[in-house]
């Protein structure tokens, strides 16, 4: 499959369809859009994402022609469209409220825009029929908007705004009025229609999942500025600021002080906890280190034993000696052993709490050394276990809360020093047999590249 990836923004030769050039919009004293520059390319599905009041709707209304920029220019195909009234723009909009004309049928709603530009009845009929087919509304053509369901209304609004084959379609929170299940279905339908028609879509949304699902690129906005523009995976995996990391998905933010990481593997002292306290079990049963190869009882095994096998086999404690609860390795032992995984070199270390081992971020920018930084860490990249894991970054803590989400569970773990860290684990077992439960002492671990080192927001 030699399909070329659609990414005109990486091509310096590509001509953008829409260009914002230093656009500022003020309403009285309030600055809705602040000196914004942005290029959007033809056939893109571009998402403007941000909390309410961030200026995304204002941007859209400027594109539609309902607002004019206070400063700067908006170009469509290289032409300044600042002075073009909305009814003369090759831009159509799908309104948040759908704005279907209540006194007209579905058919007449879709034909409304076509009738404004042509008197050719056959052409209008053909186009409306095509739109009805595209949005699977043919059966409802004679209905009035109040006689169809919310999802159907949404499709009428889409068909109406697409009927004139605009160069650019603006969608203002198009799925906001639908319930969750319908919204997910409709997202894929939207992407499908966008692909079929080849229209450039700009969608405004405050729902980050929606933006990530549908868009080819996402612009995250805050207070009239664009914070980051990138493809959804980049936005998620490599946010450029704490704001973006925090806005998109679930994230642990660990503040600290960055330092250049020493590249020598001997710098392993940074890995371990300097003085790990033994686990309670280990404290009562000092066991000789039998190495990692020794069979380990898992939590299920222990549960099985305690609840069912005890009458037959007797107390587990008696047999516990050979069954290892991994004792904390002695510091000198770790020093001797190299970092257990293939840890890439370079990057930074982050001192996050006094007396604790700094965290390793091999992907951290060394230019941040000496700065106050935040390590942004997605919960699904943090492993949780009762046994000490094999990770360059290890934290210990106690489970405070567990959110069962069906396929996965999120554990809220309070680590030493009081910071809460969220970790996710797949639920491969039944809920009642879950190995880790409230108040358990657990180990958290993550790789040297799991997090993203970000400069602390001002």
């Amino acid at each position, binding site marked *: 499959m030699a399909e070329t990836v659609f990414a005109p923004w990486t091509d310096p030769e590509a001509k953008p369809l829409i260009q914002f050039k230093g656009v500022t919009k003020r309403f009285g004293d309030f600055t809705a859009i602040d000196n914004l520059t942005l290029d959007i390319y033809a056939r893109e599905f571009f998402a403007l994402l941000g909390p309410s009041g961030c200026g995304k709707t204002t941007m859209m209304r400027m594109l*539609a*022609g*309902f607002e004019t920029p206070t400063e700067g220019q908006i170009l469509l195909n290289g032409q300044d469209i600042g002075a073009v*009234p*909305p*009814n*003369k*723009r090759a*831009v*159509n*909009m799908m*309104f*948040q*409220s759908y*704005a279907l*004309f*209540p*006194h007209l049928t579905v058919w007449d709603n879709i034909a*409304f*825009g076509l009738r*404004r*530009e042509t008197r050719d009845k056959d052409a209008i009929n053909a186009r409306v029929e095509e739109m009805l087919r595209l949005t699977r509304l043919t*059966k409802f053509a004679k*209905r*009035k908007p*109040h*006689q*169809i*369901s919310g999802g159907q209304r949404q499709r009428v609004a889409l068909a*109406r*705004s697409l009927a*004139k084959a605009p160069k650019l379609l603006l969608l203002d929170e198009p799925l906001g009025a639908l319930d969750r299940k319908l919204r997910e279905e409709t997202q894929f339908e939207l992407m499908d229609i966008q692909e079929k028609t080849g229209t450039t879509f700009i969608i405004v949304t405050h729902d980050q999942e929606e933006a990530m699902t549908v868009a080819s690129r996402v612009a995250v906005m805050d207070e009239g500025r664009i914070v980051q523009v990138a493809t959804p995976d980049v936005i998620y995996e490599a946010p450029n600021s704490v704001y973006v990391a925090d806005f998109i998905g679930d994230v642990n933010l660990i503040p600290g002080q960055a330092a250049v990481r020493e590249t020598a593997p001997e710098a392993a002292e940074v890995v371990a906890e300097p003085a790990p306290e033994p686990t309670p079990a280990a404290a009562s049963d000092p066991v000789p280190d039998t190495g990692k190869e020794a069979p380990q009882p898992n939590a299920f095994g222990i549960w099985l034993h305690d609840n069912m096998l005890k009458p037959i086999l007797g107390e587990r404690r008696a047999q516990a000696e050979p069954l290892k609860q991994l004792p904390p390795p002695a510091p000198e032992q770790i020093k001797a052993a190299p970092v257990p995984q293939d840890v890439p070199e370079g990057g930074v270390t982050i001192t996050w709490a006094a007396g604790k081992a700094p965290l390793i971020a091999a992907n951290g920018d060394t230019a941040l050394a000496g700065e106050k930084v935040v390590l942004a860490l997605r919960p699904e990249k943090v492993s949780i276990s009762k046994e000490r894991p094999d990770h360059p970054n290890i934290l210990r803590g106690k489970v405070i809360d567990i959110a069962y989400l069906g396929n996965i569970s999120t554990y809220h773990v309070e680590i030493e020093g009081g910071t809460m860290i969220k970790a996710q684990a797949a639920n491969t077992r039944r809920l009642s047999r879950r190995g880790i439960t409230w108040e358990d002492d657990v180990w958290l671990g993550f790789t040297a590249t799991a997090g993203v080192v970000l400069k602390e927001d001002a």
Partner: protein
Amino acid sequence: MRRFSWFNVTSLTLGFAFLYLPMVLLVVYSFNESRLVTVWAGFSTKWYGELLQNEEFLDAALVTLKVGLMSSTLATILGTMAAYVLVRAGRFRGRTLFSGMIYAPLVMPEVITGLSLLLLFIGIGLDRGVLTIVLAHTTFSMCYVSVVVSSRLSSFDTSLEEAALDLGASPFEAFRLVTLPIIAPAVISGWLLAFTLSLDDLVIASFTTGPSATTLPIKIFSAVRLGVSPEINALSTILIGIVTVGVISASLITKRAAVRQAREEQAAVRS
């Protein structure tokens, strides 16, 4: 399922008896043979016959109708414009004065409105007659129309107009094709209100009219000042009848429209 309690039945019966008994009596006495109110001398329609012979009343009725039609139509146009300005034009110089002038006539005593308009017409030397009454009625009823229409307009989703513009309609087309059909019920009730106010008005018409134009209320007033008259009873009965038929049929029409809409909505859900 709630039922009437005895208290509610009593208060409603007494209340509606109070509202309707005087008019019922008026209707009954319009069929009285005798000229005297006190004596019931048998059923007769002779006062209706006399009324129809009375050319003065017929002329007055014609003038009233003419004034009513002209002033209510003018008032509907001006009032709808004013409502649009109030709700949609945003800020402009003198907006406060404008909205003040819309609301003030609603609470202004009729004697003052009438007096001030008369003084204006005399001041500019306009002959008083049908034209001056029309001007006066238009002025105060346009305010009522604009209140009715603006309350509908302000609950109207602006994005509908924006959608029309977005789809290539000019601002005027957007108004004609989208706004007007949607606010039409309010515009129609505004017109009806203006028409009724004009038919009803005695005080302002008395001030602004001249010898050439006498409206029905002026005629009735001068006739009843001296006491009850059976012709007026007959005339009142006719007017009450027209209003009753009008209001009831209007409410039936709207009710049927509502039922039809509900049925259509149900049909939509079923399929």
